[in-house]
């Protein structure tokens, strides 16, 4: 009897390999797939009352990653990535290139990066399976370890490990943002558009050398896993107002902290847009600290209060 059982277990082992795979391994496979596979995904991005259809094509030309992102509705808005350079081609301004290893704004850059970096702030838990874009998908929950950030859930294609659906969820389980793949095509060869993009001459990368001179700002408190990415002084893109700028991130959630001269009308203390982007303001004398990011407004408030000059 025992022998029969053992035989059954031994025989079913190959089939169970995927069943036994821990959540983190699923995410690591996704990260590898996003970097190495050649595919085209059509997806929609749902944010509050906005729906954006997009196409994302990824492949490798001469061993360099090439990717193309196109907004299908409205004025042309595309991004091209060749190697570590991303060029944004938008209707309202001349094309510009930045140094980046992912096209920012659709699939979180952290998903193609080292998954271990997220472990301080999030836990990975396997969920159920469901059919998305006509393919079987495995749910992986990315659960925040505290309520200072939002949670995420991602459904991965069971064949290719590419993401099929991505949800951002608030603490009270409200859906804040969703990416939904409607078609996933695994490509056999590099599509012509990527070959074309690789050959194309793109604008030179914006000089980042002027990103210096930030004061030595410190935080007496930051949620676990958040680190300071960059500090500088620059002028706001819209109002040309001079600000001290600090970028902090836990990998998935990115927060910008600004210190500037307070305006005439005080900014709201806390403000929440319906896609989860929040803004918090703390007034210190005639200066104001503004924190912006896709985390709960309470977290931003606390961060804005805990900033100090060393």
């Amino acid at each position: 009897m025992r022998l029969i059982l053992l035989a059954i277990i031994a025989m079913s082992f190959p089939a169970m390999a995927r069943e036994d795979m821990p959540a983190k391994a699923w995410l690591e496979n996704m990260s590898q797939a996003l970097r190495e596979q050649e595919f085209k995904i059509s997806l929609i991005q749902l944010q509050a009352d906005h729906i954006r259809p997009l196409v994302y094509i990824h492949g490798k030309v001469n061993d360099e990653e090439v990717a193309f992102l196109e907004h299908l509705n409205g004025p042309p808005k595309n991004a091209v990535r060749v190697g570590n350079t991303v060029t944004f081609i938008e209707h309202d301004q001349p094309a510009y290139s930045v140094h980046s290893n992912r096209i920012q704004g659709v699939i979180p850059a952290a998903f193609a990066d080292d998954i271990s970096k997220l472990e301080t702030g999030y836990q990975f838990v396997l969920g159920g399976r469901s059919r998305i874009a006509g393919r079987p998908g495995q749910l992986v929950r990315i659960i925040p370890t505290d309520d200072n950030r939002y949670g995420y859930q991602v459904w991965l294609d069971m064949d290719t490990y590419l993401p099929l659906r991505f949800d951002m969820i608030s603490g009270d389980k409200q859906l804040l943002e969703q990416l939904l793949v409607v078609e996933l095509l695994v490509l056999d060869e590099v599509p012509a558009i990527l070959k074309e993009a690789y050959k194309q001459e793109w604008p030179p990368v914006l000089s980042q050398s002027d990103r210096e001179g930030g004061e030595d700002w410190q935080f007496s408190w930051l949620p676990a896993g958040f680190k300071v990415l960059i500090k500088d002084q620059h002028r706001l893109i819209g109002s040309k107002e001079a600000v001290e700028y600090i970028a902090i991130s836990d990998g998935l959630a990115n927060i910008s902290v600004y210190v500037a001269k307070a305006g005439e009308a005080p900014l709201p203390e806390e403000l929440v847009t319906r896609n989860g982007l929040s803004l918090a303001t703390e007034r210190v004398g005639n200066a104001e600290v503004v924190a912006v990011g896709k985390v709960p407004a309470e977290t931003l408030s606390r961060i804005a209060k805990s900033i100090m000059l060393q």
Partner: protein
Amino acid sequence: MDKLGQEWVSAAVDGEIDEHTLAELVADADSHEQWRDYHMIGDAMRGELSKTVSLDLSASIMAAIDEEPAIVAPKPTTVAKESNSGATGKVIPLFKQFGQYAIAATVAMVAVVGVQNYNQDSLVDNSPLPVLNTRPLIGSASPVSLQTGAVQQSQSYTNDQMADQRRRINAYIQDHMLQQRLNNGVNIDDNSEVDTTPVAQ
């Protein structure tokens, strides 16, 4: 009939019936047991019961007790408690553990069911109209020109102040969005000079 039958048997045991009735009794298989019992009772009253018979009785009584269900069950544990407290010490934690597992499993079930329900709800919400179920609006809505949905203000100011405020909120949000593009090339690991251990509140 039954009563009558018993009387017959009793009389037959005592040898007080005629041959015809005895023949009838022999034919009546149901009464054979009673026949035996009456003889046994008679033997017992006369003190003539053989040892084998009494053994047989006690065995059948034991068998009957063994077959007796349920009510007997708690007894052995109380006996065990009185006789051997060491053994019970082992038994009880084991049962407690099982209880805890069961509770944990139940909680997990509830959690899973709850989340799945939520998912279904959100799917149902989203399927007819692609409008997301999001935070309620507070105060008057003043849309930000950037694609970030409506922005709310809790206080009212003059139009100029409102415009100024809105412009500055826009500027910060736009700058934040732009920074996402610019900062992406920065490696997190290179800038970890800030101690991120939370300060006790």
